[in-house]
């Protein structure tokens, strides 16, 4: 079954961002021209201003804003850095070039804008995200880490030099790296009915080998542990534009559970952004209850595992449903199991037995 993707105009989005940058630039230009010290406000990212929004099921920033003024000498440097980054982002998007956090750090040195280290420049990037309310990928700053995707999805590139070129993501058995050109491409055609995000590369390969994509009409995404932003953006687009349900498979431990939660509802670190979450995504395993149910080989939880459980139990997102229940079971059995544990019953047990059951359960979640 082929689906016609909903129209998504990334061109428009770029225009909006460029307009926003221009608007800020013009405002500051006018201030300077009048001899006033320019200033602008940034949503405060301090812990006290991060609140959980139940409606959109993610952490967001509260109403507090911090004014950054160029008159204040202790803020002047950071102000200039932010201005430079806006200027640099404007050039990146205008010229359709991509960049990384590290790139940004080094690029600054061509403009006498000195960052002491990369963490300082990373911080300014987050500031700009907050000001523009857009993730860094929207102004062409991409993460280094790459995860992969495989399945029947035809994409059409928009990056310079590849415009109009199409690729099907099932053409290469190792999968396709989720980079800027992939996340910025248009989705043209797919037969998939579900997206399966899996925590580990090894299992991803197994799923491709066992043709999970065909058997279950699935697009398989390797998150490589905690899903990078580009991967989360891709998952969100697959869900929003293709109306595909997203299910997540992780190791049966507290960290795995949280990997799923971040895909679903984001992280406190990215509370200033709202385009990275898939609120309808479903975590299907490995649950703590699965460990007993499938009699999986286990390893004991460490002290930090246990502490993490207690921490998460205080998080508003873990106050109901399986999220709360599974955490409590983990704390009770004090053991954990990896996805590979199913190999005890044979290498294909996980795709033959476990996955179908779980996909079935997912429908009722």
């Amino acid at each position, binding site marked *: 079954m082929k689906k016609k993707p909903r129209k998504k105009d990334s061109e428009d989005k770029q225009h909006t961002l460029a307009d926003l940058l221009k608007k800020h630039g*013009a405002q500051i*230009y006018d201030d*300077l*021209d009048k001899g006033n010290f320019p200033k602008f406000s940034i949503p405060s990212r301090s812990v006290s201003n991060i609140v959980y929004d139940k409606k959109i099921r993610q952490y967001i920033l509260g109403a507090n804003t911090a004014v950054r003024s160029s008159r204040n*000498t202790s803020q002047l440097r950071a102000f200039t850095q932010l201005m430079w980054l806006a*200027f640099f982002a404007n050039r990146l998007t205008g010229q359709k070039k991509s960049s990384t956090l590290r790139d940004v750090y080094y690029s600054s040195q061509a403009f006498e804008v000195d960052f002491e280290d990369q963490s300082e420049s990373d911080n300014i990037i987050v500031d700009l995200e907050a000001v523009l309310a857009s993730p860094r990928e929207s102004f062409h700053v991409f993460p280094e880490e790459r995860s992969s995707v495989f399945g029947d999805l035809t994409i059409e590139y928009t990056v310079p030099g590849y415009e109009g070129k199409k690729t099907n993501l099932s053409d290469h058995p190792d999968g396709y790296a989720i980079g800027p050109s992939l996340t910025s491409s248009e989705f043209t055609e797919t037969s998939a009915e579900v997206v399966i995000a899996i925590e580990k590369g090894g299992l991803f390969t197994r799923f491709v080998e066992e043709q999970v994509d065909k058997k279950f009409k699935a697009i398989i995404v390797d998150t490589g542990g905690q899903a990078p932003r580009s991967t989360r953006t891709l998952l969100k687009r697959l869900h929003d534009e293709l109306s595909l349900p997203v299910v997540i498979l992780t190791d049966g431990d507290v960290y795995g559970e949280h990997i799923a939660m971040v895909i679903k509802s984001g992280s406190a670190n990215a509370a200033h952004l709202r385009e990275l979450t898939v609120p309808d995504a479903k975590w299907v395993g490995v649950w703590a209850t699965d460990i007993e149910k499938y009699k999986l080989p286990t390893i004991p939880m460490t002290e930090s595992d246990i502490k993490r459980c207690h921490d998460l139990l205080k998080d508003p997102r873990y106050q109901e449903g399986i999220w709360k229940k599974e955490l409590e079971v983990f704390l009770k059995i004090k053991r954990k199991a990896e996805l590979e544990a199913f190999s005890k019953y044979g290498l294909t047990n996980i795709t033959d037995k476990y996955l179908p059951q779980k996909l079935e359960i997912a429908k009722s979640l």
Partner: protein
Amino acid sequence: MSSKETFSQISPSEFFYRNRDLAGFSNPTRSLYTAVREFVENSLDACDQKGILADVHMSIKAVDAEKPDPKQYILTVRDNGPGIESNHVPLAFGTVLYGSKFGLKQARGMFGLGATMAILYGQITTNKPVNVKSSTDGKTQDEYEMLLDIQKNKPVILRHETKEVSKTGLSVSICLEGDYAKAGSKIRDYVYQTSLITPYATITFDDPKGEKYRYTKVIRTMPPSPTVIRPHPHGIDVETIRRMLLDTHYQIPAVDDNMISKVRKELGLANKNLSHSEIMDKTQKKWKTLTRSVRIVMALVSFLKMDFEKLSKTTIEEIDIGNKKLTYWDFGESQSISVDMDPESFYYKQLANTVQGETLTSFLTKRFQRVGPTTALKFAEYAKFKPEHRIGTMTNQELVKLTDGLQSFDDFMAPDPSCLAPLGESPLKKGMERFFEPDFLEVVQRGASAYSGFPFVIEMGIAYGGKISSRGMKVYRFANRIPLLYDEGSDVVLKVVNDTDWSRYKVKGDPPLVIVSHICSTRVPYKTVGKENVADRPEIERELKLALLSLSRKLSSFMSKRGQAEAAIKRKNLYSKYIPLIAQFCTELAGKKKEPNYKKMITEEPIVEKET
């Protein structure tokens, strides 16, 4: 006293020879430094006392420069002071315990012993004589070369010459074993710091390596000199009281020919030979004009009932006030004769007064500072003595009781500070200015205060920035215009400085800050024999704190003004650096061609908040 007899077995020179460690001559390093101090301080004291602005020239030269230390050096100190009378020179420099500095007032050294000790040390280590050149009139100069006979405590003059000169002054030159390699920095510090606290003097130093240090005077007026004063009751001990009593007692005068002619003169008898009763009549009439000794003689005569002829042939043996008997030796009859005294007689009372000494109240008001008749009466009541108690009749126990009372009675007025010689705020300021050329300088002189009956005055200065090169706080300590160079760790001044929370006064990190502290007192309470650190007497600590407080407040206001000015400059620099960048970036962002007109934002003078 018996202890005195023990020491009289050896001469003072011998005693010091055997105990030279005590006087600071323990090794070649220490000895060279101590010798320098003794001579320089003697010169400065001599000039101070005569109100002469001192020029002190010091040089140290190696006898044989090639030799390694320790070796023989020639130390010469020359001044423009009053000099020493030619006939006193051999005694002053050739005997131990011959000095002029006795009395209660502030001076650098105590008795002038140190210089003789240095000469003694030089002679012991090199067997070379001391050379002294002195001119008191600015016309002739006496030059002596002499050795000290240690056993006899007598000078041995080897050479004595006189010649014509044009200036007064004293020059002393000795040869001694020293270690300049080790003592050098200490000596240079000493010269430097002495100049700092003596801005009215020129001090020069030529060191053995040919380095010349020159500190010329920056002021030409002498700070007021101290006066010698009577002791304060709080600062007294039993031995001092006993000595004061001794010279309070009027000796029974010897009735020799001199005395008799004095009596005749005062009574206006000329050469007339009057009868006893006629003489006594005259005495009655002229009593009020008679001197004390004549009164005593006449009181005796009233009981002896003899004329001057006979009186000249007697000696008074005993005046027994208790038994009212007067005993004399009659040369003519070669026997002791006692006569009764009529206790009702006017003359008996006069005699009793003399023999038993003054009353307690009179003794206190006359012999101590700051004690009036009212205070004396209050004290008598406090110490449980009758005000009219004759001090001549006091037993040992009573003397101890009196001393304890004097030390503990709270109502005596504070000691008279006129015996102190603080430098004064302006000279201290000029001295510090010369050395540090600071951005900020304040000095303060506290009012006189006292501890244990010894008056003291604290002077302090604080300097910041300018040519002060040291990083971190540097404290220069002085006592009676002498630098205290060592053992500063345990000094009360350091304690007070370190107890201060400097961040409250906007002083942070390692500031280029100098504190000069000067304690003036007739007795500085040193902690150790080395006289390098001052003990933390609460009274002194309090005054130091108050002085430092008033200075650091002024420093604080300077620092905040300076901070504002620095911040304004810093602000301007930051604007100049970053505003053009912001302009560049926003021009491209806004899609404009021409940069905004931001120039005035970075060229305008920074606004400095006005002083409030």
